[in-house]
Each structure stands twice: as C-alpha cells, then as structure tokens.
C-alpha cells in the first residue's frame, strides 16, 4: 500500500520548495540583467527570435499567448514572472507551498527562454558553439514529431548534469538509444556535461543519433520544453495561451522525464518544478528528498537516490511508459537511434552494391518457406578483405495465410529501416539502387552476413506477424547469383509499378483511414486513397491495406466509399460518415480533391503545404525543409501553424510530396496546372513526378513555367514571371 517517503532533516520544504524559490530568483536576476545589458547596447525594437519557428518564444507564447518579437516585449514577461516568484517557506510556521512552487517553476521556464533568446541576439554566450545545437527549429520539430506519433520514439529524456565517468555516460546513452528514447542534454554537474562525456567516449551526438546536446547550461533545457510546447500547438491544435490544454496534452501524450545526474542545485530544482507543470517527473541519481504522492504528474514527481544501472528503467516506469522492444539477435546495439548513423571511410570494413557493384533486394511470397533459415551464398565477412566492395543481393521469401502480393513491396521497403537500425550498418536506397556498408567495429563485435538475415527475420515477425507466418532469407555476396537476382527483381518491380499505376480512386471500393497521429493530433483523420497518400508521406493506400490486415483494430481502418456524392470534388457518402465520427463530430464532410472547399484536415507532420495565391489564380507549394519566405507572405512555419491540429482551413492543405504526382492533386480546381510557385530544391527533387503528371494532363512544358524563390517571393513578382512565361493558370477559370 502506502510507500513511506524517505525523510531528510530539511525535507521537501527546505530543499525543494526553498530551492525552487531561491533558484527562480536567480533566473530572474540573470534574465533581468541580460535584458538590461541588451537594452543598453541595442534598440528596444531589435528583433528577438529563435531561428525558423512560427511560435515566437514557444513556451511563453504557448502558456501565456504573449508574443515576444522585439526586445521591449520581454519586459512584460519579466514582470509576470516576478509575480510568480514564491517566497521561501518559513522554517517553523510555513504556509502551503506546492502551488506556489509549481508557479515558480513555470516562471523559471519563461526566464530561461528569455535568457536563451537573448543569446541569439548576442547577449550572453553563443547558443550554438562547439557541439551545442541550441534551438530545435520547426523543421526538426515536425520531422521528429512524426517519430513521436508513430511510436518509433516513445518519449524523451531531458538529461541534466554528467555521469560519474565517460564509460557510465556512454552506457546510459546506449541504454536510452536501445529503448528508442530521444536524449535531450543541457546543464552540468561534476564539472562537465553528459554531452561532452559522450563525445569524449566517441559517441556520435546530434539529431540523427537521438542524442541531442542543447546547451552546456541548465537554461538549455528550455529547448526540450519548447519542443514539447510546440507539439501541443502544432499537432494538438491547442491555441496559444490555452495553458491548461497545452500542459494536459503534454501530460497525456508527450512521455518525457528529467534525468538528473550528479548534484541537484537550486537552478535545477527550479527547472524541474517547471517540468512538473508539464507532467514530466524528475528521476535523480543524487540523494534528494522524494515527492511520491501522485497527481500533477501521472505517477511520482521526484524519485531520488536511484543507482545509475536502474535509473533509465526507473524513469520509464515513473513516467508510466511502456516500451516494447523487439529482441534482435545481433552482436551490435540495435534501435532507431542508430538509423541516422554514418560510417566513415576509416571505419569502413566492407561496402556492398552501390555505384561500384551490382545489388538488389527483393521480398516475395513463396511456397515451402522454412522459417528462420538464413542462407549466405558466397563469402561471409570473415572471408572478405577489409576495404573491399562486393556485389550484394537479398532475397526474402515469406509465406502466410493473409499474405498478398500487394504487400510484398511494403515489406521490402522496410528492409532499409530494419538494417539501418543496427549499429555499424548503413543502408541507403531500395530495390536495385541499394548501397550498404558495415563498419569495422561491427565486424570486430562479430557481425556477419547471417545477422542481416536474422535482423530481417526478427523484425518481419514483430512488425508483420499479422500477415505472415514464415520468413527465410537468402544473402548473395557473389556473382553470378546477384546478377541473377537482379534480373528477376527487375521484372517483379515492373509488374508492381504497373499494378500501382492501375490503382485509381474509381477502381477501388475501399479507402483506408489513418489515425496514427491521433496520439498527437486527436482531432485529425487522414483518408488515404490510391491517388492521395497520407500527408506525412509515409503511408500510401497499399500500406493502409496491409496495416489493416496486420492489426484489424489499429489506426488504419477500411472505409467503404459508399455512394459517390461528387466525383469532381472527391466526396463520398461513406467517407463523410467516417470522417464525422473519427473527428469526434468536428467535421461533417470533406472533399479529397479540393483546396478551396472543405479540404482535408492536417495533423502537423505533413511534408508540404499548398496555399492559394489569389492574384496568380493558382497555388504555391512549400515543403517543410524550406525555411525562406514564400509568396503567400508566410514562411512554412507560420503556414503550418494555421493548417495543423485537425483544422479545416479553405485555401490551405497539407499533403505529401508524392501527392503532387497524382492526377487528383487539387483536381477540383484544375490540378497540377494551378501550380505556380515552389522552392527550387523541392522543384528539382520532384522534377520527374511533376513533369509526368503535367504531361498526362496536356501541359508538356509546365515544369519550366513554375516559379521558384529565384523568381521572387512577392506575389506580384510571381505574377509578372507567370505572364512572361505564359503559365496556364492565368488562362484557367478564376479561382474565386
């Protein structure tokens, strides 16, 4: 039943409540003096901002609704924060302090955000020096947001301080990576920082490995909190200033916790109290007072004196998180954190396929599959000279009662992720354009080609157990076997492409829903049709179909189209009914092919946004990697703020890049020929897709008529360009 708190002589009151009170005061003093320093050297109207975000100073904006754009806007924040600084509880006749302490923690967050934002205008140390990354902009937040949505990242650990030694730091980081967690790092103890220890231990840090060094001071953890705050606004559709919902969203959906290594000082107590407002508990190595009663966080609020060997699993339990790990029998570390890892030349043991050798991978349904059998045809790693390049082929044969040939490409495409997640294994591309590398370290650890097969076997069973029963893998490392596989594979690829091309919205009776992101965007629902893929770009119609077979009660459900209500707009009776209930009665109907009339909603993890440009009688498209201004007068980050969170906004849609190759891309308004502007980089990336789509609609030379930022970012400049090149949109029916 009741667990007894360890009682320290000073206890919660003096150490935690008192520590927060003293700590917040220090935040306030530093923020105020930095602000005054800034005012002394620059104009009060100087712009204050984090790079590339539509959310100003996100914690302050999210919680209070207050916009800080200029230096002088900070004064209001300082005044409001000062009101929240709690008194230190009196040693004998104290008044209740919990509410006041939590308020003080919130003030500490606002003040930390001011301190960090001022670093960006040159007051205080640079926020991005050396290994430190500083603010995570909206591009990162949206990209990584997808991982939080689909479960490949269950949550994040906000690590503060440093481990007793480099080896322990590396072990802790590996353990968290192995549990798929993001590790956000800021603040020091023991005279160093966790991030610096990792670098010293030869660990790659950065967003790619999920080990993110925000800053050397505790203030840097504001980037953890403002990441979480933006998630609520971007994916949850919470309005800035609606603090109760932002904090509840984080408590319920963002599974973060504070891992305090080494000594916890007053500044850290204050930051931890701020985190508790978000439902993020603190798990400390140090022997500090514990707060075990539950309620503000899901379970305990502060757990302390936890041995470092247990601290990660303790943290996961305290945060109420369940992490399901597939055991993959390989001698190296394994997990999504290693997906982004590079293998440098001097660590390279063997290179497979790529530009210098033949390669192909193929997943097919077969008879007489012997589950778990891995056959290596050709030399295994031990027989290969270090530094060589070899031909490489993978033939994966599966069988199962629910297996369909339509699912083969879906399974095949996953090989890329599954192999990449092994530490020391690099996989690029798919089909016949694969390029793979294995590191010396992996080989030293005992990694062989047989493990390639074991990884695929284990992951296929864990991810696709609902549709397949048996998996066997053939690894070819020599000619002529690889070339033979290549020949067979190419004919299969061709059949698949033809099949995919024949799938249209009218040729099927069933669409698929995708509510995968309802864990983050509770009001959004994607409807995936053959001609319109999910807006995150990760799911097409076949994926939806397979996912439903794998997990019949999962986030992808079949939607019977029912009666066609409007073929031109893309509206069906069955779809409307589904959308109404899946959006919790927020939306009555939607048009799959229109940007102007009741368009589809967006979560927040869309790859691109299209926006109507009224003057040009067309639309522009911008992807999330483009941080510059657009002719709509808004950057991607601002646009994203107005279309995310399940809101239906006429004139704006979020979508996948791939959708731009579809004949149904804004077809209600005239299709691809309406496209008048896009970022140059995106345009080049999608050249073939757009060209083919335009050609199929009779616009052979459309590609060259689409403006980019090189032609301008003002709508009238674009109009001039369109007129010069004779863009077809100008001749089309008026949009309004």
């Amino acid at each position, binding site marked *: *039943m*009741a667990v*007894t*708190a360890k*009682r320290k002589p000073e*206890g*919660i*009151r003096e150490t935690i*409540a008192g520590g927060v009170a003293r700590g917040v005061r220090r935040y306030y003093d530093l923020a105020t003096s930095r602000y005054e320093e800034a005012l002394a050297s620059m104009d009060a109207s100087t712009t204050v901002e984090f790079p590339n975000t539509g959310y100003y100073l996100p914690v302050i904006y999210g*919680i209070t609704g207050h916009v800080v754009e200029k230096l002088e806007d900070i004064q209001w924040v300082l005044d409001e924060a000062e009101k*929240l600084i709690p008194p230190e*509880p*009196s040693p*004998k*006749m*104290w*008044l*209740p*302090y*919990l*509410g*006041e*302490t*939590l*308020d003080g*923690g*919130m003030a500490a967050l606002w003040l930390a955000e001011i301190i960090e934002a001022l670093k960006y205008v040159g007051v205080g140390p640079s926020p991005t020096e050396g290994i430190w990354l500083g603010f995570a902009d909206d591009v990162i937040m949206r990209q990584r947001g997808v991982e939080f949505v*689909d*479960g490949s990242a*269950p949550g994040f650990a906000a690590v503060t301080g440093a481990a007793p030694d480099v080896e322990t730091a590396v072990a802790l980081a590996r353990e968290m990576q192995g549990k798929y967690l993001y590790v956000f790092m800021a603040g020091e103890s023991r005279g160093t920082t966790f991030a610096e220890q990792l670098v010293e231990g030869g660990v790659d840090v950065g967003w790619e490995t999920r080990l993110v060094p925000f800053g050397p001071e505790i203030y840097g953890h504001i980037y953890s909190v403002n990441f979480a705050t933006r998630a609520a606004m971007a994916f949850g559709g919470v309005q800035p200033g609606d*603090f*109760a919902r932002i*904090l509840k969203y984080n408590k*319920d*959906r963002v*599974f973060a916790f504070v891992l305090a290594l080494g000594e916890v000082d007053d500044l850290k107590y204050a930051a931890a109290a701020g985190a508790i*407002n978000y439902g993020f508990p603190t798990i400390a190595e140090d022997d500090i007072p514990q*707060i*075990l*009663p*539950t*309620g*503000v966080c899901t*379970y305990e*609020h502060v757990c302390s004196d936890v041995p470092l060997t247990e601290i990660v699993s303790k943290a996961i*339990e305290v945060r*109420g*998180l*369940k*992490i*399901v790990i597939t055991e993959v029998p390989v001698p190296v570390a394994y997990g999504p954190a290693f997906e982004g890892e590079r293998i440098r030349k001097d660590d390279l043991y063997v290179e497979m396929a790529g530009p210098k050798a033949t390669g192909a991978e193929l997943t097919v349904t077969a008879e007489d599959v012997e589950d778990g059998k891995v056959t290596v045809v050709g030399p295994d790693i031990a027989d290969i000279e270090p530094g060589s390049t070899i031909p490489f082929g993978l033939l994966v044969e599966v069988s199962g009662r629910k297996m369909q040939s339509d699912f083969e490409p879906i399974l095949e495409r996953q090989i890329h992720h599954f192999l990449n997640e092994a530490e020391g294994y690099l996989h690029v591309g798919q089909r016949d354009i694969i390029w793979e590398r294995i590191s010396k370290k992996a080989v030293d650890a005992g990694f062989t080609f047989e493990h390639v097969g074991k990884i695929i076997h284990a992951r296929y069973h864990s991810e696709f157990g609902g549709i397949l029963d048996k998996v066997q893998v053939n690894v070819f490392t020599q000619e002529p076997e690889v070339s033979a596989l290549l020949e067979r594979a190419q004919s299969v690829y061709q059949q698949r492409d033809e099949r995919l091309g024949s799938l249209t919205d009218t040729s099927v009776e069933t669409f698929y829903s995708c*509510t*995968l992101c*309802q*864990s983050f965007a*509770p009001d959004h629902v994607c409807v995936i049709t053959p001609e319109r893929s999910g807006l995150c770009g990760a799911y097409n119609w076949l994926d939806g179909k397979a996912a439903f077979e794998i997990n019949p009660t*999962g*986030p992808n459900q079949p939607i019977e189209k029912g009666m066609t209500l409007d073929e031109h707009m893309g509206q069906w009776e069955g779809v409307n009914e589904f959308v109404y209930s899946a959006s919790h009665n927020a939306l009555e109907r939607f048009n799959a092919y229109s940007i102007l009339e009741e368009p589809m909603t967006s979560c927040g993890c869309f790859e691109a946004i299209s926006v109507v440009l009224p003057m040009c009688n067309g639309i522009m498209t911008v992807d999330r990697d483009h941080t510059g201004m657009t002719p709509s007068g808004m950057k991607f980050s601002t646009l994203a703020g107005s279309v995310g969170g399940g809101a239906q906004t006429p004139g704006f849609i979020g979508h996948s890049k791939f959708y731009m190759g579809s004949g149904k891309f804004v077809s209600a308004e005239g299709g691809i020929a309406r496209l008048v502007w896009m970022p140059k980089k995106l345009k080049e990336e999608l050249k073939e897709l757009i060209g083919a789509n335009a050609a199929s609609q009779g616009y052979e030379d459309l590609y060259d008529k689409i403006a980019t930022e090189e032609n301008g970012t003002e709508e009238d400049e674009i109009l001039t360009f369109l007129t010069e090149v004779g863009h077809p949109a100008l001749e089309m029916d008026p949009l309004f």
Partner: protein
Amino acid sequence: MAEKKTGNGNGYAHKSMDPAAQEMLKVAEEKGISTMFSRVDEKGKYCSVGGEGACCKICFMGPCRFTGQNKDEKRGVCGATLGTVAARNYLRSCAGGASAHADHGRDMAKTLLAVGRGETKDYRIKDPLKLRRFAGYYDIDVEGKEDLALAAEVAEAALNDFGRQEGYQTMSYRAPKKRQELWDKLGVRPRGFDREVVEAMHRTHAGTDQDAENIMDHAVRMCMADGWGGSMIATDISDILFGTPKPLSSESNLGVLNEDEVNIIIHGHEPTLSELIVDAAQDPEMIEYAKSKGAKGITMAGICCTANEIWMRRGVPPAGNSLHQELALMTGAVELMVVDVQCTFQGLVDVAKNFHTHLVTTSPKGKMTGATHMEFDEHRAREIANEIVKMAIDNYENRADIHIPNFKQEVVAGFSHEYIRYMLGGKFRESLTPLNENIINGKIQGAVAIVGCNNAQTPQDEGIVNLVKNFIENDVIVIVTGCAAHASGKHGYLNPQMFENAGPGLSEVAETTGMPPVLHMGSCVDNSRILTLLADIVETGGLGEDISDIPAVGISPEYYCEKALEIATYCVGSGVYVIFGGVDSPVKASGVVTDIHTDGWEEKFGGKLEFHPKWEDIFEHSMAHIQKKREALGIHEARERVLVDMAERRG
C-alpha cells in the same frame, strides 16, 4: 512538533480538555460567577420526553407525551403517532437552523446589492473573478460589465432564490449530475427558500402532514434549500465582498488577548460588520487614540464563526469556540465584545456585569436585554465600526484585575475550495486530481469533515480533538469548520508541523503540499464549501459518479444547535454519511424516525444520519464506512501501475 498542552490538573478536565478553559473555570469558581459549564449541572434532571422528541406541544389540547414501554402504541389527543410527533419536532428544529443560515445568506446578498447600487461606499468587490463565476451560475452575461453593475444584478438574482415562487434553487444545479437526477426523481430538489420554510411550518401545524416519511422528505428538501442555496450564497458572496480565503498563519486560544492593549472581541456569525471593525482597529489614527489612552495598541480577537470569517481572511486570531465566550470576558481584559447573530448567549450579560466589559449587540434581529445596542446598518458601516472601536478604547482605563491564561497555539487557516485546487497544482495545473489520485492510491484513505459546535453537556473539545487525532493517524484527511475548527486549532492540529503526527501516506501528502493534515475551511455557513468540494471531487473523476460514492464522512462530535441538525440533513440529501456525537439523537424516542434517519435515508439518498454519543464509536463507524466505500470503488487494494504504449495514446 507543535507544543502539546495537557490539562493543568485543577479539576476541570471533565468540563473541557482545553487548559485555557480549565484555568478560567477556576477563576469563575473563585469569583463565584456562573457559566454554561456550571449551569448545565444546575439545570435539573434531563427530560427524556422532550430530549428525545416524544413531547408534542404544537397545539393546545396537549401537551401529549409518549412515554413508557408502549409509547409506540400511544396516540396524541389528535391521534398522532410518536413517529409523526418526532418527525414534526425534527422538521421544526431544522426549520430554525436552516433559517438562521439562510437569513445570513440573505443579508450577504442585501449587502452586495447595496454595494452594487452604490448605496454604501464602505465595501468593495474584493474578488471580481469570483463575482463573474458566481454570475455564471445565474446565466448572467458578464461581458463588458463593471464590477458594481454586475454585483447589483447578481445580488438581485441571488435574492430571488430566497423568495422564488417558481423553479428551483439555482445553486442546486452545481451538484453532480447523477445527484440532481436523483433529486428530480424523488421530487426533493429545493425550491424557493422562504417557501420551503413556510411550508415546513404549515406541514407541522396540527392536523396537516401526519406521515413521518413525508415530513422527513420535506426536511431534506428544505435543508437543501439552505445547503445548495442560502449557505452557498452566503459563502460565495462573502468571498466576493471580502476575498476568497487562502492560508494565513495566526494564533489561537485565549492567550491571544494582550494585557497591554485594548482587546476587542468579535463574536457571532456574519462578516459584514466585523470586517470593518478590523479595518477601524487597524487605522493608524485609532491606534494613536488607543495609545493616548495608555494602551500599547489594539488587539482584535474572534469567537465562534465571526472569528472564523476574519481569521481566514484577515489573520485575526481566534480566542476560542462558543464555550469560550463567557470565559473570554472572565479574563477582565476585554474592553468590548461585539455580537451579531446566532450562538451569542444571554449569559454574557451577567458575566460582563462583573467586569468593565461593554457588551454590544448590533443586529436588529439579535438584541439582548442588559446589553448596549448599536444597530448595524451597512449603509454607514464604517462609521458604526469606528464608534464601536472608540467605545472600546475609551473603556480601557476602566480595567481592573486581569487574568489572561498563557495558552495559545500557532495555526494555519483559510482553505477555500479555490485554494485547495490551487494548492494541488498551482495556477497552471490547478485541480483536485492529486487529491482524488492519492485517495485512489491509498495514501489518503478517505476524508472526514469534522464540523459544528461545542456542547456544555460534554467535555469541551474532547470528541473533536480525539477524532481529529485518530483520523490523521490513520491517513484520513480532516476538514474542519465552525467551532470544531477552533478546537483543532487550540490543540495544535492546524499547525503544519503536525504532518509528522499523521499516518505515513497523509504525512507524505502534507509534506508535499506544505498543508497541515487538518484543513480549516471556514465558518459553519461555509459547510457549503464542503458541498462544492464534494461535487468537484465527483467531477474530477475516479471516485464514483456521485457524492455518495466517495469514501467520506461528515461528523459533528459535539453538536448543540438546530443549525447542526439542518447541516446534517442537507448533507444526507447530498449523499453524505453523517454521524453526530456528544449527546444522543433529539428524536431517539421514535424508532420510526430513527429508521428513516438511517436505513430509510440511506436507501433513498445514499447518505444517512446516525447518533453515536461516544467519539470512539464515531471513529469506528467512520473507518468502517470509508473502507466499505473504498471496496465498492475497487480501490481497497493496490492497483497495478498502468504503463501506456502508443496504441493507448490514440483517440
């Protein structure tokens, strides 16, 4: 740990467990002054016929007495049964109690109206946010309205609830949905307050309602017109005018009186005048005047529920509960005692005659032969307050021997429902969720409200303090109001250091929040705060769908008055298990009415009323009830921790 005071062994432990009271009773004995403590022994033999509800004198053919072995077979002259007679007696007692509380509420609404209309400049709106929330209950549009205009509109709406001829008490819609459905099904949702009381008097007139169950149903309906009406309006408007309480530290018991200062005691129930007397006494000019008369300053202290009002809003130290009223004068150090309404006893006149003390009555509803009457009028409130304070100062020079007992305890008080929400999550996460969750996880086993009076028939504070001590030791959080709050304070239980004496779970919660394990929630009219809290606990979730599902008990261990019965009755109607102690049931003679109080009401309302004179029995029944409710909720055993995966986060 708080300083523990035990009795001083002077032979008065059977009268009071409070050492200050024991000391003053010795003084009374020496001076030959009679008090409630002595008169209770002189009043003669206990009349079990009247005392147990078996005497009917509502008409003049009687009185009819139902005594002896076959009392249930007896009939009155009119043919009335004992059940009818006891039920009528009970309803009439409740009518008295409900009227006292609701009339307090009406006066608060009238003050708010005068403030809103600009007829008095002596008050202002101290909690404009609460004014707006309160206006919301009346569906009054608050957009763009000035405080005063809105106050007038709200006051009119509130006043309408008293004389309402159609529809129901507006505040009744604040109850949990399921409770409201039950009231509507049973036809007991309270209507206009005045109507309910008039109807009670009508029903109990000779030859009208002669069905015990029907009479007792009306008792519930009428009392709820106060609990979910008059009292709730009184509390909310007091907060609007004088500020919503949040914890303050102060000191409690007769030791707060100051030998070098002018001592003024405010006694009674309403905050309207007392708030301004506090203002007047803190006025530097007035303090200078006191100094000119040889005093070092002015000490304000309170007794009974006026004390609670100014204790939790202004930090004015409470001198004691209702049985302390005569003892305070016995110190000889009180220049003036000002009283308004309820529980201010005529015995004060005789005690005051022995000292220089001025006894001042202020309410037109509450004059006392032998006291000075200075009638309160909210339109010139500050002026009257000034006159009273000046009168006290002028009396300082008339002091003779003084005897102030050196007993006081440090206390923290002022836990409004609003502050409790704030305490549990701060401005940004305020809610009752942590309370509910710690009840669910068993750190807190349940909650009891210990409320109400002292009774001269039982040792002062003994039942209250023993229960408080045992409950907190067993991880039951305690809420106190009224004179029970004073008792808790005087004996150290409102000191936050007391967390060390609580059970391990409650102690952890108290240490986390910084609260004492016993929360002072206000005066007796503020028992409406407890209803609001209970409704919010249900709304917060996890502890059932109705108040009757919560592992909680309402207790008045030393009840003495009609108001207490009335509070018990509206609590039962709201679904609460209520236990009264000290003295036995006032309707004990009737098995029929006793069955209605217990099984009958439990079946209907999910709450019931029992009388257990001994505190040990109250404790045992309470703990059993808490355990029963925990079992019904399925929280009596530790639950497995729920760990969330991605699928569970969706939707």
